[in-house]
């Protein structure tokens, strides 16, 4: 068990390293640069900017610098200005005070070229919670609708409940969010004026986007739950459970449903990572200041540190979630062993 986790964590860092390598060099080979404008900036200005952000150094050196700033902890001496403290995710005062104040600083994702006073960590601090809240709300909706819908459809197979449930689900997976979102906005926001159409100023602003995101995934989860539950219901241990006189309710809940959730849990990992790190389309449509919208503009502006930071953050979430999913398997089905 311990060995399994250690191996997986080492593997995780290897994956993150490979991804950082691929994206860094892919990104630098994209034509255009962060300071390319339609009306070109004076050459001297571009040169200064490139020097400031170390963009004139060889790409390999830039990569090593970038990774070094994230991975290596460093100790700075002297008083910290608020902005230099916020450049780092971890900032622990060690000893001394005033001029010989020593601080341990760790994990710096670099500056953003777009605004001089903000760092990528600032963007994470401000925009990630927004995406996170929206993602959690959407996932809750998806599970709250998807699992019961799939379960009912499977238990009442080939009845009207099954047909209606699965009909709704196939509609849900077929309707892309770029279409359902404007329809929801038009009906609930514009026509009936029940909820705000765009923006992010309170819980009521999350309702439409969370439902727009939740529906698609609810449909996906419902289909998965139904298929998996149907398969589990044919297993021998279900017959055994019924034969020993358990109530139908406990057969379904304790024996069938629990085992049928394995495929659902499998997609939950990547789904969670995708939802909480920002969903470009929904955030763009609803004008939500989350990670997704930031990412789209950072690609257009060649804001290299923001692009790198977002991708690494997503990849990190994904590998961590996949590890948690594997651990959850063992809890759901004790027959599953990894070592």
């Amino acid at each position: 068990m311990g060995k399994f986790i250690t191996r997986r964590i080492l593997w995780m860092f290897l994956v993150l390293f490979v991804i950082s390598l691929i994206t860094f060099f892919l990104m630098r080979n994209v034509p255009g640069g962060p300071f390319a404008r339609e009306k070109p900036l004076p050459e001297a200005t571009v040169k200064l900017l490139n020097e400031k952000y170390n963009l004139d150094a060889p790409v390999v050196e830039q990569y090593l610098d970038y990774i070094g700033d994230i991975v290596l902890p460093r100790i700075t001496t002297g008083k910290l200005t608020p902005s230099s403290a916020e450049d780092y995710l971890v900032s622990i005062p060690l000893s001394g005070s005033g001029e010989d104040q020593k601080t341990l600083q760790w994990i710096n994702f670099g500056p953003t070229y777009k605004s001089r006073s903000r760092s990528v960590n600032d963007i994470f601090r401000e925009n990630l919670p927004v995406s996170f809240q929206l993602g959690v709300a959407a996932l809750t909706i998806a599970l709250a609708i998807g699992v019961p819908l799939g379960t009912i459809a499977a238990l009442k197979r080939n009845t009207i409940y099954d047909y209606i449930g699965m009909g709704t689900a196939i509609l849900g997976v077929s309707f892309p969010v770029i279409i359902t979102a404007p329809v929801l906005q038009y009906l609930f926001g514009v026509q009936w004026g029940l909820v705000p159409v765009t923006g992010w100023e309170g819980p009521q602003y999350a309702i439409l986007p969370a439902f727009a995101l939740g529906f698609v995934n609810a449909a996906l989860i419902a289909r998965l739950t139904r298929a998996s539950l149907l398969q589990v219901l044919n297993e021998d241990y279900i017959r055994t459970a019924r034969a020993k006189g358990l109530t139908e309710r406990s057969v379904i809940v304790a024996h069938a449903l629990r085992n049928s959730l394995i495929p659902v849990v499998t997609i939950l990992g990547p789904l969670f990572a995708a939802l909480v790190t920002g969903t470009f389309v929904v955030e763009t449509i609803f004008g939500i200041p989350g990670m997704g919208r930031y990412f789209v503009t950072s690609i257009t502006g060649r804001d290299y540190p923001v692009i790198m930071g977002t991708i690494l953050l997503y990849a990190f979430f994904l590998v961590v979630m996949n590890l948690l999913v594997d651990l959850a398997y063992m809890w759901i089905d004790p027959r599953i062993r990894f070592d």
Partner: protein
Amino acid sequence: MATATQTQTGVINLQEERRQPQSMTRIVVRRFFAHRMAVFGLILLVLIVLYVTVGAAFFSEDYANKTNVRSKFEAPGAEFPFGTDSVGRDVMARTIYGGQISLAIGVVAMSISVTLGTLVGLAAGYFGGLVDAILMRLVEAILTIPLLILLLLLSRALMEISSATTVILGREISVTVVVIVIIIGLTSWMGLSRIVRSMVLSLKEQEFVVAAHSMGAGKARIIFGHILPNCIAPILVSATLEVGVAIVIEAALSFLGFGVMPPTATWGNILNGARQSIDDLWWLWVAPGALIMATVLAINFIGDGLRDAFDPRSIK
């Protein structure tokens, strides 16, 4: 025989199957056409294809791309059944020509991704060892980068020539169409390659493969002549669904402004033009939106029907 088909009970059908041995293809085709939703999907898709092909006889592509500031934002009426957009183009004519491009993007991107996915899956499953390890780690690495992020990056990397056009099949088309097709195809083969690989792993141990090998069949003959035909079910199903996925991805990319560039229309970039005006200019998104939904729905119904038709456990 006639009575057996008339009484639609499972038992009779089973007996009928036993009496008359049928080829796999015939069984699948018969089951597919017995699947009501699948037939509905097929009819819907045929209607959409008719709309974008026969419709093109009524408007020229030049007309669909022609701007006319005097007639901008006209509501649907006798002259423009679906209204006009912000530069006075006829939305109906644009959904027709845009539909051709969207459907073509779906089909070509699917061909790329299915070919790649099948080849990678066959190679990884059959050769195993180092080949398998490298290919499957590659699949995992690509899956760890979110699809849309990868697509946005690639689209920017390859699209500096956004206003250029090229001539394909006698039509002048934005170069971005080619770029989009390629990047969608190159980023969506991983799922299929895993499925094919797992099928090959069990197929290559079976007697008929061992027999073929002992009779002196070469690797290529075993892989493409004996193993591939047995993987056809998941390949066909995911090929069908992939067309819908590719159409939706194109729409999402175009919607974010990273997709196909005007004047070439696609359903996605017609929608993009409607972004700022959901309240009063409803006709800008209703027509392309309904067409995308109908197409994807039809494809999903067909895909589900095919899956059930191929599934040996589903006897209807």
